[in-house]
């Protein structure tokens, strides 16, 4: 058989590999949308509904903000801890446990650790604060504009060549985010100061996740993406335990009670616990698919596919929560999702997933 026929067989195999990357990107979006919705639902369970943690939200006051910060960081800690455990179980089952130590001893492994600090304490905190203040259906679309920033950064750092179509998609993502922000709310909802705070904090997640994606991808070029993710979730959970929660508790106590640890210990024995375990499962596997897509499909394309969670989040929010989404919210989320798809699909590039000059 000739080299040409071998080439044809290998092209088919490469196409299959590329399609797996695209599939992983889509799955990461669906699972992240589901995870965000479940995280929002967790706030409806004890201990978050307990009288002991109730505060007045009718006027602007620091006690309410402190309590919301406590809810959010407790949620972020539990989400990332459970995600770290689920991913570790997945890696051990796949016979990759020894890769943790080997990877951590390399510089790429340390880059993943740095990415974890940006994606966890910065990105995840902003995201959970957004969910707590404005609900997952609003926070998810806003955080979804992070590929716009990532695509710009990837152009300079990885020398990715993005065609005009990618940039049109990025612009659509940004416009969709603005539509979500400025659109009128549904009946019975109002845009108070907490809505603005929630939206601003949601944008913090964009910065954290865009930076994380780039750093982690650079490191993952030389590491197994599942291991990189295991390190990411574990580092994030440890950072929350050792640094973030003690420091935030100390700082916020100047303004009002911020009972993060009490919430965490109370949550252990209540109905919120399995809900967070489930959210961590969805979030962990969303990340597994996301990291695979980043590695198999390139930064901008993988992030764009992941960002379809904006649409899935609104859809699942409408189906599973009491939210009554407006047409503007749907259009905004759909615009982000469509922009993301436009960024991702270019059949001519399926064989070359990351253009390197």
């Amino acid at each position, binding site marked *: *058989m000739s*080299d040409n*026929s*071998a*080439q044809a*067989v*290998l092209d088919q*195999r*490469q196409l299959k*590999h*590329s399609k797996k*990357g695209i599939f992983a990107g889509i799955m990461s979006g669906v699972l992240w949308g589901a995870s965000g919705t479940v995280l929002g639902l967790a706030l409806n369970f004890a201990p978050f509904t307990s009288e002991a943690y109730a505060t007045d939200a009718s006027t602007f006051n620091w006690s309410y903000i402190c309590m919301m910060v406590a809810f959010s960081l407790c949620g972020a800690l539990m989400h990332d801890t459970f995600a770290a455990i689920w991913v570790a179980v997945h890696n051990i*089952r*796949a*016979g*990759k446990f*020894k*890769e943790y130590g*080997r*990877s951590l*001893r*390399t*510089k*790429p*492994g340390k880059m993943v650790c740095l990415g974890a600090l940006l994606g966890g304490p910065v990105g995840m905190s902003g995201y959970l604060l957004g969910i707590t203040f404005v609900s997952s259906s609003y926070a998810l679309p806003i955080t979804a504009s992070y590929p716009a920033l990532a695509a710009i950064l990837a152009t300079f750092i990885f020398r990715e060549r993005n065609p005009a179509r990618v940039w049109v998609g990025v612009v659509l993502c940004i416009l969709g985010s603005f539509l979500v922000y400025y659109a009128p709310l549904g009946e019975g909802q109002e845009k108070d100061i907490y809505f603005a705070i929630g939206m601003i904090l949601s944008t913090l997640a964009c910065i954290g996740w865009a930076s994380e994606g780039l750093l982690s991808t650079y490191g993952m*070029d*030389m*590491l*197994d*993406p599942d*291991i990189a993710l295991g390190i990411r979730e574990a580092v994030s959970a440890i950072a929350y335990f050792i640094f973030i929660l003690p420091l935030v508790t100390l700082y916020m106590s100047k303004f009002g009670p911020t009972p993060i640890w009490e919430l965490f210990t109370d949550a252990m024995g209540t109905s919120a616990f399995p809900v967070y375990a489930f959210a961590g499962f969805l979030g962990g596997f969303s990340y597994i698919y996301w990291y695979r897509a980043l*590695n*198999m*499909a*390139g930064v901008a394309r993988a992030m764009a596919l992941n960002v379809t969670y904006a649409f899935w989040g609104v859809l699942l929010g409408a189906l599973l929560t009491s939210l009554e989404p407006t047409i503007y919210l749907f259009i905004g989320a759909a615009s982000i999702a469509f922009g993301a798809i436009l960024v991702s699909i270019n059949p001519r590039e399926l064989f*070359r*997933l*990351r*253009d*390197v000059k």
Partner: protein
Amino acid sequence: MAVLPLRFRILHLINQAEGRPVKANELYKELYDEYAGEGQFSFEFMEDHLMSIKAVGLIEAVEPYFDEFGEARYQYVITETGKDRTKYLPKIL
């Protein structure tokens, strides 16, 4: 005993060939003593790593051929970007 993560070790071996195309079978034999016995180590899994490393531009696939079992395979050479990333290898190697 293996020191490097499997994917990084694959890149390391291809770099050591200094531009000579390396067959997947050769890599597998080289890696066998270090990683055999680990659940993650299989020919298919190693090929997945190769395709991912290729997709991100660290190696290039050249000279396709059919191996002794009639399977289509590539040979691999390191790219300039790949060579650059080997600066992150531990100094002991």
